[in-house]
């Protein structure tokens, strides 16, 4: 038995195989933007559960506070005032936070062994004790979620309350949501639930309503029901998120090449040592340098 309470499926910068026999329920969080009233209970509940204390900020003329995600704000209500059609103002409120991708860009980019793991239930978790603070996870993330702390130079983000889910509870944000805009369960069940919500929204005139579960990152374990699924950029979401080609190249093709080169260099040095032996200073050279030294003196 492994020591961890959730089985790990992928681990950053580790080449050894991970245990993968047990099959656990794929969990997912569904955020229905059409039901959200922007009360920020999720934001408060997240800080309360995770023992985070943010700094008191300033009012910038709208409801979004703080302005951006940070090391103590792992989920943030983002407020967008948009006109999807001319003269039709809509106030779109999105709960921003980690999407828990099935193919996480942060994990691919992370060079610290075990600092980022993906559990078999789909949660992508950061382990700060292994984090080296390089910030590559931020570059690797297609949704720009992780944040480095100025206090300890470690990266932080939403854990999908892995400590609660591990003991059979729902994440804190899901539990507190007064309007039921956030729901939690098995991923298949959440997709089914989303379908009923999408059908309802289409009946109400949002003909482009749909589910945001982007295939470019293998699907996500945090999904959105959007009124305008054809235009996720209205909500500040990328239209077709993928892991950056640079990360793919660097951790994909370049890595085995570099390993092969290093192995070759090692082998070549071994052969060189066996065939040529170590460098030795011949008598003649020694005498020459001695002469030179005497002349200089």
């Amino acid at each position, binding site marked *: 038995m492994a020591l961890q309470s959730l089985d790990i499926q992928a681990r950053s910068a*580790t080449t050894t195989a991970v245990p993968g026999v047990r099959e656990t329920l794929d969990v997912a969080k569904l955020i229905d933007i059409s039901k959200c009233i922007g009360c920020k*209970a999720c934001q408060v509940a997240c800080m309360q559960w995770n023992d985070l204390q943010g700094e008191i900020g300033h009012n910038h003329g709208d409801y979004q506070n703080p302005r951006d995600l940070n090391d103590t704000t792992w989920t943030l209500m983002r407020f967008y005032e948009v006109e999807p059609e001319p003269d039709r103002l809509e106030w779109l409120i999105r709960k921003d936070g980690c999407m828990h991708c099935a193919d996480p860009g942060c994990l691919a980019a992370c060079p610290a062994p075990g600092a980022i793991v993906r559990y078999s239930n789909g949660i992508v978790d950061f382990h700060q004790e292994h984090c080296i603070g390089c910030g590559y996870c931020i570059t690797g993330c297609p949704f720009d979620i992780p944040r480095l702390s100025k206090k300890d130079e470690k990266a932080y983000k939403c854990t999908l309350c892995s400590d609660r889910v591990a003991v059979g509870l729902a994440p804190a944000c899901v539990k507190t949501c007064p309007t039921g805009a956030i729901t939690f369960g098995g991923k298949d069940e959440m997709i089914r639930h989303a379908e009923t919500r999408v059908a309802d929204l289409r009946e109400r005139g949002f003909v482009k309503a749909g589910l945001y579960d982007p295939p470019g990152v293998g699907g996500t374990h945090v999904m959105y029901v959007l009124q305008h699924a054809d235009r996720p950029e209205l909500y500040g979401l990328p239209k077709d998120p993928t892991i950056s080609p640079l990360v793919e190249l660097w951790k994909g093709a370049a890595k085995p090449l570099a390993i092969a080169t290093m192995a070759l260099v090692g082998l070549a040095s071994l052969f060189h040592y066996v065939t040529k032996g170590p460098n030795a200073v011949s008598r003649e050279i020694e005498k020459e340098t001695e002469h030179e030294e005497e002349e200089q003196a």
Partner: protein
Amino acid sequence: MTLSRRQFFKVCAAGAGTTSLALLGFSPDQALAEVRAFKLARATETRNTCPYCSVGCGVLIYTLGDGSKNVRSEVIHVEGDPDHPVNRGTLCPKGAGLKDFIQSEGRLLYPEYRAPNSREWQRISWDEAFTRIAQLMKEDRDANFIATNEAGQTVNRWLTTGMLAASASSNETGYLTHKFARSLGMLAFDNQARV
């Protein structure tokens, strides 16, 4: 620290060699990953009602320790009560932040009295507070109670004092509070929820 050319090459070779070994699969111990331990496993769970608005959501207050003699309890977490019919586990942002409300430095913990024209609040005992309130109520009621109206009908009104009750009470407490106020003849009777 001084390094000779030879030592410098040795250090570089050793570094490159060990990192390559790790990359080639000869990694050191596997990095174990464990989720954060569940912090409420043996905390004491206490049911209560959120004190903010008239909705009266049920909350669970988690305190450190099991109530043993030598343990001083401290609130470590508050969340919604899933068995409460009003909110079924949910809480609004104010309710979700109750822990900070309980532990706020500005929280009123005892009765205080400010004399007329004074700027100072002074701490008084609960007994003093209750006695003073009861005394003032009785004086006012004795002076202003209306037993009958102009037509001679019995009305038993007391119009000069009002009562503002808490909204987070249970039905039973609410019933008793109502009986208390009405039996004094008090008509101005309102609830904090409308403030």
